[in-house]
């Protein structure tokens, strides 16, 4: 007999519970590092095409009269050649040009800048839209799963996907990574991937239930455990292939998708884990209650 995933569920619930609590503590203590997509201001990203000291960049901005501290400047990119500077104010085209000129003067190999400025109204609207996108996507998915399967599968799957989304958000809060619009897209992808992965397993459980009368909790545990192992090769192979693609994009892709691909990487691992170790055991616990009522 293979490893008893379902019978050892309390350990997995404990592990995920601990991660979730740790995530809540991190979020309460530090909050999220919201990018210019959500907080009004300006984000200047420049590929200096050489190694540099953060203080050099800091001095350029100070020289131009901006109120910046060391915290506002981060080094990015796999080769650490990119500087990201956060300003609390929105700037004009003229100011943008002056910044570009000043950077070019000190770093002649500079490959170009990307400047994003967002005013408070737009930032507010973006956060509102992102929130609705997450909400409606979840509601839509629950309804679909409830129709095609049963509501217990739907809700168990949603708990697992919220778990995944939360873990990604917590990791970003803990590592102080910037939360921007692509990050929201990444979380939504994870929401889609997580439920996608879970459905394949639920589908097998549903099929096995058809062929077998389950009367006791122990029988249910055995059936679900069997279903999990039946789909295990697929679960592992699929997540491996997606991780291959994502990891390559993370390591060698453009700097601007670095956070995006990292969020996906965390979410993919969490999604594969939660489909097996969280979603299915939750369903077993829930379903077993109705078993007892029947007998």
């Amino acid at each position, binding site marked *: 007999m293979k490893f008893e995933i379902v019978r050892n569920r309390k350990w997995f619930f404990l592990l995920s519970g601990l991660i979730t609590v740790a995530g809540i503590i991190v979020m309460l203590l530090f909050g999220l590092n919201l990018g210019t997509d959500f907080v009004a201001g300006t984000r200047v990203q*420049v590929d200096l095409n050489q190694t540099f000291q953060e203080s050099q960049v800091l001095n350029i901005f100070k020289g131009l009269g901006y109120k910046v501290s060391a915290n506002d400047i981060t080094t990015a990119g796999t080769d650490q050649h990119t500087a990201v500077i956060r300003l609390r104010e929105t700037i004009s085209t003229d100011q943008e040009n002056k910044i570009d000129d000043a950077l070019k003067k000190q770093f002649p190999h500079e*490959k170009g800048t990307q400047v994003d400025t967002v005013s408070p109204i737009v930032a507010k609207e973006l956060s509102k839209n992102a929130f609705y996108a997450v909400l409606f996507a979840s509601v839509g998915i629950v309804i679909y799963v409830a129709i095609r399967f049963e509501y217990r599968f739907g809700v168990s799957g949603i708990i697992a996907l919220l778990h995944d989304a939360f873990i990604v958000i917590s990791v970003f809060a803990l590592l102080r990574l910037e939360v921007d619009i*692509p990050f929201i897209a990444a979380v939504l992808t994870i929401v889609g991937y997580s439920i996608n992965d879970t459905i394949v397993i639920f589908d097998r459980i549903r099929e096995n239930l058809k062929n077998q009368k389950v009367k006791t909790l122990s029988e249910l545990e055995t059936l679900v455990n069997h279903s999990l192992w039946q789909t295990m090769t697929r679960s592992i192979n699929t997540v491996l292939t997606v991780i291959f693609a994502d990891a390559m994009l993370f390591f060698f*892709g453009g700097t601007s998708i670095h956070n995006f691909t990292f969020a996906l990487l965390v979410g993919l691992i969490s999604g594969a884990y939660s489909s097996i170790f969280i979603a299915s055991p939750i369903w077993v616990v829930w379903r077993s209650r109705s078993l007892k009522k029947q007998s």
Partner: protein
Amino acid sequence: MVRWSRFIAFLLIVAIIFGVTGATTKKIWSKIPLGLDLRGGFDILYQIQPTKGQTVNSDAQKATIAALDERLAAMNYTDPVIQAEGTDRVRVQLAGVFDQKAVKSALVAEAKLEFRAPDDKTVLLTGKDLVNNAKYETDPQTNAPVVAVEFKDPKKFADITQKYLQQPIGIWLNDKLLSKPTVQTVIANGKATITGMSSPQEAIKLAQLLNAGALPFPLKQLSSTTVGPSLGESALHSTLVAGLIGIALIFLFMIVMYRIPGLIADCALVAYMFLILATFAGMHLTLTLPGLAALVLGVGMAVDANIITYERIKDELRNGKSILSASISGSRRALRTILDSNVTTLIAGIVMYYYGTGAIKSFAEALIAGIVVSLITAVFLSRLMLMLFMRSNLIKNIKWIFSGKGVQTK
């Protein structure tokens, strides 16, 4: 018995996939509009400001869009994206290599042209009185750059030249004196030239600004994204290389894990990538960095459909079925699972498309296209190829089909 007709049909499909992909991919790729994060450019959101006596409504929005469009066309930017957003906003997106500084300032620049009386204060005519056909010319006598203009109401101009005969009329651009010619004769045909430009470039620019007209409303910049052209180019290059390495790894993985069916899945993946590029080119969807990432992830989802199918077939083989009947029943059972799992992701994609803007929207587009195309290629095409191959009876040794323990046939 080997059925060669089926095997030839199988080979034909493979040949078509690689032939079409190899022959046209380059051309299709060049037709896909690249987002500004991939080739530089800017994206600016303007808010239309109300002016004295005028409120901002949808007409004002349309007028502003038309004016901006004319302005960019006058500067020879033919494929700008100018969209209305909300009730009082306009978004301008321009990708490609160009002088961003000049275009940005020209977009909001006012071209307030005035013809003033000799007292330099009384405004006789403005740029609004001009026909939109101002053009750059050179003065036949002095070779100096001039701008030829024509007035909408020739009589009005004739009256003015009559009134100020032998007097100087000032031509002012944005409150700066350009030239102050003395009226020599009464001009009846409404045609005049503006002198005082120091270079042909300056004259061309003035002519363009005059033709584009003054902006009906002042614009306030709400947000902007500017990507330097070489930065965009290097992002595109590194992301493409990364994506290709990732896809190559997936190809290899499938062959190692599933042998000949893995190869078939890889052929279907090539068809997937070709079709997805064709979809982007055909629908003029703009490819952005997150969109490119979604496409590569779409490859993962397409692979998943094949993995689900192949694992199912292996299950059926373990139950003692023959290769052929295991392939048939395994594919059928897998289909429902694939559909259910893809529809859920599709729901997320549609919601993102509906509520998203910019990067999210283009990501959602790529995701939706990826799901639909992967259903066509990774489910139906891949299945067709697998069935043709299995029915051809070419391979009887199970070792060539799938790897892993427990798979054996009777």
